[in-house]
């Protein structure tokens, strides 16, 4: 055992360190180097889910129920992994609407209803205060465990002014007041607080793991040893199985727990506060989606081994809650026990602080301020009261928690409160999630659902627990029902048997809740305010930034800007109000706050700003009082929405058109460039023969005494170059016309064999002149005449002449051989021109079809323009064919083209688009 002074002193020292850490984080946040702008801090802060109840209680549950402690952590894991998009939408909506709490969210969504806000707040207080008491109890138990000599009876609880737990509670109240009420505006974060919570998550994880490691490896030979021995012990074997021997696995209980724990990820006020309200950057969620489940896994790793180790070493299941402390203490590790106590303290204080902030915010905004507003006195009171009210609420919540702890003592009511609290806050789920995704949810529906859910929860869960702890008179309530009505028995309501208490309660409360939410919402039409809010919440979260211009404004009336500014100054302070209005003015393109018109957007902006401080429902009331408002009818709202969505559509269409225009512009620029290239090549090709013509002409002009032979040579060159120029101009024009789609194409039946013979005759002299032989290979007409193809005969002849003259240019002089062949295939006719020239290297085979490229080099280049092949290709492709080249260097070249047989309906040539392109 340890001395009380040591234990209490350690606790106080730890709290002092927390204060220091929070103060440091607050300072850094104010200096702009925020500690909490880090996704790890965000993810770790969510570890506040693991409270002292889980620190001690899960070991206790594991000791009696084995693996049944798991669903409480599996639930959130599944919820985060599968449902993170829901959380993300919640984040976005909360940011846009400046939500400060769960009550604020539900109330704001369902028409900014103060009644709903109050209802949610009350349910929260009823559900959470005992939970806070449980944490304080855990601290007290921990202290007692460490300081009680072994074997001695537990000391009677000290008077409250001597009670260290009271000191802890008071310190926690102070901590929360200092670091949780710095800023009342929802936009600024509680830097110190979140940093402290994240640090506590680390501390409790380390401490628990340390004890786990000690238990497994210090007291046994590792976890395998622990499990082996437990399996060997008949009393403990059952803990390793999900179902007791011989019984079936209770699916419904498992699922009920999973559902409950999963919902608690959003519905527990502290989780909502940390995950949604305190979130700094939506992108942190991605880290949290896997980091938070990983944390849960890590902290639960040693729960079962610890429980088994404790049981194996002689502890009873009833003492299992304290194994984290008692095991190290009993086995000579007081330091470790103290560290574990600090871990438990972390778990308890983390929960208490955040929960208190959440609950006190709700109490202040949704219970106290609305009540005070009814009193005329408050209308003129200074805004500093807001902070005071908030702090008073904190003190009240913690005071209530401590009082409950003192009164409940060892009562059943306290110990089982954890899951009962979960079930209470789970009643928010239908309104919370339904409101986020279903526009049809109305205020009446939410009220009905919450009312029914809460009532059934109280009847089926709260009442039995009170009865069991002896607080409820009439102990036979559970056996026989109220006034003997067996059908109304709290744990077998309306005869539903066979479920454990929690699942039974969940079925009834959540079932009725959901049914009434949906049913009543469908029956009663929503009013204008509800529709407006529904649209904002369900639709408005599409854009993370929530562009102020895009969102429709649901307000009609007149307001004086000075009034609104005064209102803002009352609640936010004059400096902040001025800054916010200036910012708003800038966003609207106005010089300053003074230039703001008293229009709907200003009113909406003011309302949203105020909501961050006092909640949407109250903000609505307060603003409505100070402006002249015209009641919006339902059709007004719908009309406004229509206009907004039309505007959006126009904007989208404009954007599309703009994008298309840009793409078209780029295409045109590209084509322009190509045209430049083409023009550049054409001018080069045209200027080259012109150079010789001009220069030689000048030479002849300037030198009358030129030798006749020389003159003849020059004139011959001039003539040849002029001809070349003429051919070039013709071909360039031809090419341009084809590409511009302005060439004349005639399509008729063409007799290929006859055409080939014509081509052969025309080029016969040219080939003969080079000493080459031409071989004509036509298909055997015995099989039938060659079917005609649909084409332009003159153009095809042009292609053939081009190919043949190319062949003639490149065959070796004297022994050249050109083969012109026609083959009929199933698809179409194939014409080939094969020569025994030098061939074309593979690298250049694609190049020959480019404009102005010519094979070989200029010295040996016969008269050609470089446009023949490209034009031929265009022609062939226009009629649906293909022009290709096959060549092995040194083995000659084969140019060929195929033309398809005409199909029954005259097929449009596939290459039509090519000729349709603008040059």
């Amino acid at each position, binding site marked *: 055992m340890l001395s009380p002074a040591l234990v209490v002193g350690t606790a106080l020292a730890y709290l002092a360190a927390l204060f220091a850490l929070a103060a440091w984080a607050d300072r850094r946040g104010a200096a702009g180097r925020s500690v909490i702008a880090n996704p790890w801090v965000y993810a770790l802060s969510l570890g506040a889910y693991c409270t002292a109840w889980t620190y001690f209680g899960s070991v206790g549950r594991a000791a009696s129920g084995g693996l049944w402690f798991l669903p409480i952590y599996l639930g959130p894991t599944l919820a985060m992994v599968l449902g993170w998009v829901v959380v993300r939408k919640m984040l976005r909506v909360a940011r846009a609407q400046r939500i400060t709490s769960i009550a604020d969210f539900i109330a704001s969504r369902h028409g900014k209803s103060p009644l709903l806000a109050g209802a949610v707040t009350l349910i929260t207080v009823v559900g959470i205060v005992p939970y806070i008491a449980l944490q304080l109890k855990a601290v007290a138990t921990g202290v007692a465990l460490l300081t009680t000599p072994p074997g001695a009876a537990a000391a009677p609880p000290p008077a409250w002014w001597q009670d260290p737990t009271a000191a802890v509670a008071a310190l926690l109240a102070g901590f929360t007041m200092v670091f949780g009420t710095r800023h009342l505006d929802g936009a600024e974060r509680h830097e110190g607080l979140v940093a402290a919570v994240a640090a506590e998550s680390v501390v409790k994880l380390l401490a628990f793991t340390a004890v786990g490691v000690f238990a497994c490896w210090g007291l046994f030979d590792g976890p395998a040893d622990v499990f082996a021995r437990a399996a060997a012990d008949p009393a403990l074997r059952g803990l390793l199985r999900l179902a007791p021997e011989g019984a079936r696995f209770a699916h419904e209980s498992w699922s009920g727990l999973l559902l409950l724990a999963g919902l608690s990820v959003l519905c527990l006020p502290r989780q909502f506060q940390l995950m949604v309200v305190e979130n700094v950057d939506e992108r942190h969620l991605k880290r949290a989606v896997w980091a938070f489940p990983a944390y849960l896994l890590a902290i639960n790793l040693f729960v079962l081994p610890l429980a088994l180790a404790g049981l194996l070493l002689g502890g009873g299941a009833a003492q299992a809650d304290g194994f984290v402390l008692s095991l190290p203490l009993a086995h000579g590790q007081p330091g470790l026990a103290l560290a574990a106590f600090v871990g438990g303290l972390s778990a308890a204080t983390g929960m208490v602080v955040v929960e208190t902030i959440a609950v006190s915010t709700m109490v202040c905004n949704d219970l106290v301020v609305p009540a005070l507003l009814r009193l005329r006195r408050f209308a003129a009171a200074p805004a500093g009261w807001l902070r005071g009210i908030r702090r008073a609420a904190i003190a009240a919540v913690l005071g209530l928690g401590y009082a409950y702890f003192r009164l409940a003592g060892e009562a059943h009511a306290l110990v089982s409160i954890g899951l009962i609290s979960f079930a209470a806050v789970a009643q928010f789920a239908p309104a919370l999630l339904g409101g986020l995704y279903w526009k049809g949810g109305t205020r009446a529906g939410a009220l009905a659902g919450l009312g029914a859910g809460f009532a059934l929860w109280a009847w089926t869960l709260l009442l039995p627990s009170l009865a069991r702890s002896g607080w409820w008179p009439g102990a036979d309530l559970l056996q026989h029902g109220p006034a003997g009505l067996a059908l109304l028995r709290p744990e077998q309501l309306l005869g539903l048997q066979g479920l454990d208490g929690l699942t039974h309660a969940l079925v009834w409360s959540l079932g009725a809740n959901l049914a009434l939410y949906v049913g009543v919402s469908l029956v009663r039409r929503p009013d204008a305010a509800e529709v407006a809010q529904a649209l904002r919440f369900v639709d408005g979260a599409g854009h993370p930034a929530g562009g102020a211009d895009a969102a429709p404004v649901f307000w009609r009336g007149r307001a004086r800007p000075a009034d609104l500014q005064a209102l803002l100054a009352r609640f936010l302070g004059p400096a902040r109000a001025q800054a916010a209005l200036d910012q708003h003015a800038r966003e609207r393109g106005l010089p300053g706050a003074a230039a703001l018109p008293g229009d709907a957007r200003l009113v909406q902006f003011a309302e949203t700003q105020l909501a961050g401080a006092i909640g949407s429902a109250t903000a609505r009331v307060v603003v409505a009082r100070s402006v002249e408002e015209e009641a919006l009818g339902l059709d007004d709202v719908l009309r406004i929405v229509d206009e907004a969505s039309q505007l959006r559509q126009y904007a989208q269409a404009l954007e599309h058109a703009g994008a298309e225009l840009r793409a078209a512009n780029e295409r045109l620029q590209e084509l322009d460039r190509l045209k430049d290239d083409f023009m550049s090549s054409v*001018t080069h090709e045209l200027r080259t023969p*012109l*150079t010789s013509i001009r*220069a030689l002409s*000048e030479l002849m002009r300037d030198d009358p005494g030129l030798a006749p032979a020389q003159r003849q040579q020059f004139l011959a060159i001039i003539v040849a170059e002029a001809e070349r120029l003429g051919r070039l101009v013709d071909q360039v024009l031809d090419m341009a016309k084809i590409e511009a789609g302005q060439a004349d194409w005639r399509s008729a039946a063409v007799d290929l064999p006859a055409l080939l013979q014509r081509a052969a005759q025309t080029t016969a002299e040219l080939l003969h002149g080079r000493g080459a032989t031409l071989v004509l290979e036509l298909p055997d007409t015995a099989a039938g005449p060659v079917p005609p193809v649909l084409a332009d005969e003159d153009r095809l002849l042009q292609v053939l002449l081009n190919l043949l003259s190319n062949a003639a240019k490149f065959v070796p002089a004297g022994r050249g051989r050109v083969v012109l062949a026609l083959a009929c295939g199933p698809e179409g006719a194939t014409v080939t021109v094969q020569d025994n020239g030098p061939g074309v290297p593979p690298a250049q085979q694609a190049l020959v079809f480019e404009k102005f490229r010519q094979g070989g080099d*200029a010295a040996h280049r016969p008269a050609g323009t470089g446009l023949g092949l490209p034009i031929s290709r265009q022609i062939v492709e226009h009629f649906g064919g293909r022009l290709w080249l096959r060549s092995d260097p040194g083995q000659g070249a084969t140019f060929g083209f195929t033309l398809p047989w005409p199909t029954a309906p005259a097929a449009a040539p596939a290459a039509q688009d090519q000729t349709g392109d603008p040059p």
Partner: protein
Amino acid sequence: MTATVLIADDEPNILITLEFLLQRAGYQVLLARDGDEALQAIQAQRPDLVLLDVMMPRRSGFEVCQAVRADEALAATRILMLTAKGRDTDQAKGLALGADAYVTKPFSTKDLLAQVQALLEAPR
């Protein structure tokens, strides 16, 4: 001593024309039909001036110009570039690479001769 002029162009007719023109003007003329031949001839024969066509196979006029200017030993060689291409950018490129002058085709024979003379007489 008569100056030596190398004419580098892949068009045979232009070679004929320029050869006649320059010989008649009294210069010693060397011929090259592509970029490689041109560079070899410049290195071997050290002509005083090179009439360099830009569009040539194997090595373009720009590359030859660059190679000549990179060689200290050939610093005395004057380079006059000829081209039929239309863009100002080519002219600027040529001059940037170290050509002494640039003439576009088709040229006036008188102008060309004048340029050649000016280049050969200019002090280095």
